[in-house]
């Protein structure tokens, strides 16, 4: 075993791509993805304001808008220009104060302020819609009070009128609704899964032997698999640990449970992934083919995790497909540990869903056995050469 491990290590050392995949590529790509989202909170999003009234009141309302950290109002002289800016994504929403707005308000004719938000950008659009309504609403409050007093209402009823029910909305578990806390962990886990898949496919491909049509499995296949598991599990776990350390250590995102439990779950995720990869490689027995099949499976992992779109609202087929991906199982546990501070017992219960992947082991075992028997019966006289490890890319 020791000799095999040494040989495996040497193979890794001599393969620049594989070496890059286990060292700097994960770190660079993780930092890049985090950097993309590092703004965390959407702030100062441009909003077009078309003021057809141009009264003191509408200017006050616009000032109210700029006081909101999410909104950055930009004034446009007419509607056409504002619409143009909206359709080229220069602004994400549009507010129109109608002509004679103040007049209408004071004479009691209920004027309308039009708000259009860009829902093609769902995330920004929804956010702006609620923030604009909130800002304008509070700005109008004062005016409404004034108007009622003018209308002869007594002071007590004005107070009731204005805001009888105040509401306080709290984001549980992700203070401030920070997008780093909510988007970055699943994105990075999806990336870790992709990288681990590639690393393990490459490692397995490296020990296939060159055959006539497809590659051949070596006789000591399982022994080699065990060596690779021993070598690559800790390496990829290190990168998984890096994600956790970066997010919850360095960036200080809130975490309620213990990081140790997450590391443990990552081990299970990797184990499940290895089982899947072994099956793929045994079936394909062709380097480029295995990579393609692995990619096809794991590339959309992020969409299926249920973080951006709730699992319960997915069609049944999608709910089944998501179970094929170890990352979805991991993310379920990740959320209960990070948000709810789940204890070991709860985590183990949740992680038991990984056990389904064990079914793959006997299947692969049987397949390998059949293939090896076939290979033995096809007596090839030619000496076998190691197939993969083709020349490296320059």
């Amino acid at each position, binding site marked *: 075993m020791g000799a095999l491990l040494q040989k495996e290590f040497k193979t890794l050392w001599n393969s620049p*791509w594989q070496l890059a995949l286990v060292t700097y*590529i994960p770190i660079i*790509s993780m930092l890049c*993805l985090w950097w993309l989202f590092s703004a965390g909170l959407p702030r*100062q*999003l441009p909003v077009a304001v078309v003021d057809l009234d141009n009264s003191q009141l509408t200017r006050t309302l616009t000032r109210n808008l700029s006081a909101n950290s999410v909104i950055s109002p930009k004034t446009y002289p007419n509607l056409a220009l504002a619409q*143009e800016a909206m*359709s*080229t994504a220069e602004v994400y929403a549009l507010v129109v104060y109608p002509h004679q707005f103040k007049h209408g308000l004071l004479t009691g004719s*209920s004027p309308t*302020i*039009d708000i*259009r938000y860009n*829902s*093609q*950008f769902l995330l920004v*659009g929804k956010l702006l*819609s*609620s923030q*604009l309504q909130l800002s304008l*609403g509070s700005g*109008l409050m004062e005016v*409404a009070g004034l108007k009622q007093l003018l*209308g002869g209402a007594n002071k007590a009823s004005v*107070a*009731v*009128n204005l805001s*009888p029910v*105040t*509401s*306080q*909305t*709290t*984001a*549980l578990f*992700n203070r401030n609704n920070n*997008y780093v806390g909510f988007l970055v962990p699943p*994105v990075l886990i999806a990336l870790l899964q*992709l*990288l681990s898949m590639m690393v393990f496919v490459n490692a397995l491909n490296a020990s296939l032997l060159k055959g006539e049509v497809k590659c051949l499995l070596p006789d000591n296949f399982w022994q080699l698999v065990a060596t690779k598991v021993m070598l690559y599990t800790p390496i990829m776990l290190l990168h998984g640990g890096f994600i956790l350390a970066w997010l919850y250590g360095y960036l200080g995102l809130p975490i309620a449970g213990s990081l140790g439990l997450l590391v443990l779950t990552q081990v299970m995720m990797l184990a499940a992934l290895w089982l899947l990869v072994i099956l793929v490689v045994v079936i394909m027995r062709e380097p480029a*083919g295995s990579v*393609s099949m692995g990619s*096809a499976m794991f590339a*959309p992992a*992020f969409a299926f995790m*249920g*973080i*951006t*779109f*709730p699992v319960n*609202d*997915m*069609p049944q087929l999608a709910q089944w497909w*998501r179970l094929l991906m170890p990352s979805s199982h991991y993310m379920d546990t990740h*959320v209960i540990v*990070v*948000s709810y501070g789940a204890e070991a017992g709860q985590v183990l219960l949740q992680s038991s869903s990984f056990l389904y992947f064990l079914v793959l082991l006997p299947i692969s075992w049987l397949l390998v056995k059949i293939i090896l028997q076939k290979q033995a019966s096809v007596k090839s006289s030619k000496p076998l050469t190691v197939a993969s490890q*083709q*020349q490296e*890319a320059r």
Partner: protein
Amino acid sequence: MNWLQLFVADFKALLSDKDIVLTVFGGLLFYSVLYPLPYLHQVPTEQKIVVVDHDNSSLSRQLVRHADASSKIKIVSQVASINEAQQWISNGDAFGLLVIPEGFRRNLLLGKGATLSYGGDASYFLIYSAVAEGLVAAGMDASKQVQMIGLLARGENPQQIQKDLNSVNLNSVPAFNPSLGYTPYVVPGLFLLILHQTLLIGASILGAGQWRKQGYWQQVSPLALITARIAVFSLIYSFFSCFYLGYCYYFYNVSVQATLGQVLLFMVPFILSTAACGVALSCLFVRRDLPTQVLLLVSMPILFVSGFVWPVALIPEPLVQAAQVIPAVPAIMGMLQLNQMGASWEAVLPLWLQMWGLFLLFSLLAYIGVKRRLFSDT
């Protein structure tokens, strides 16, 4: 070998390569189903929440009924305390809670005002926003009710009250994606990216498999080879673009605002520049299992940097600038503006020209790369 023969030979080489056929033809069909699959039901509805009603009055019960009637939320239980509600949420049985304080109705009628507390599990973005929207709407409803009761009690006349309560209408309406559906939000950009990435992978695998071997590609000039190859891939991807932008948009209910002519005109430089980029990239590879890996790794960053998932305004400037050389980035932004948001052709013209610029750039790089591969590796 004349150019037409070369074109046919290249086409045959592509079709006889199992991995390319799997990636390009199989992949495109598979992804057109798989990627939108989770979002088919479009809008998250009926998110489960629990209620802690400390008031237990007629008004609080009405509030709860109103909340339950909202399509966004479903009240699964009334619990006695906030701790118990937390338990429900931790167990994953609910995603939010509504707390009605003691004396809610009495305080309101006395004109003292009251505070409702809502909480949503913000670990899940859409669930949180659905819960918040549903509860805020219910709260506003209740608030109107109370105002009405309070004002009536003070002897105001009902008509005046109606006016007072709705002194200004805030008419907030979504533009461009009226159903607020998730598929029309994700699909247009994502599909262009899939076309882009599979084309790059296909072209790269084809090149990687050829460079160090003997074949028709060595009997022709680099210029002939790259033009033929760009033509082959462009032809295939014209058909796939029609499938993606035509049938799939229709199937997934993606709104379409541009004319057919504009879309076609816009797609031309996108396909050409991507094909040229693919040929240029192929010169970097000699191992056939590498292109898929490299291009897969950059897919996610390209998806996010193209600015439809996460606003461009919030992405660090250097990343946005660097991404401008990726054909998919101007293509996605331009296509969204043109086809989903109804921008005029003049508005997307700069992006269109940018793609033509990229086509020239990558053609030049492809020429240099192919020349080096053909003459140094023989």
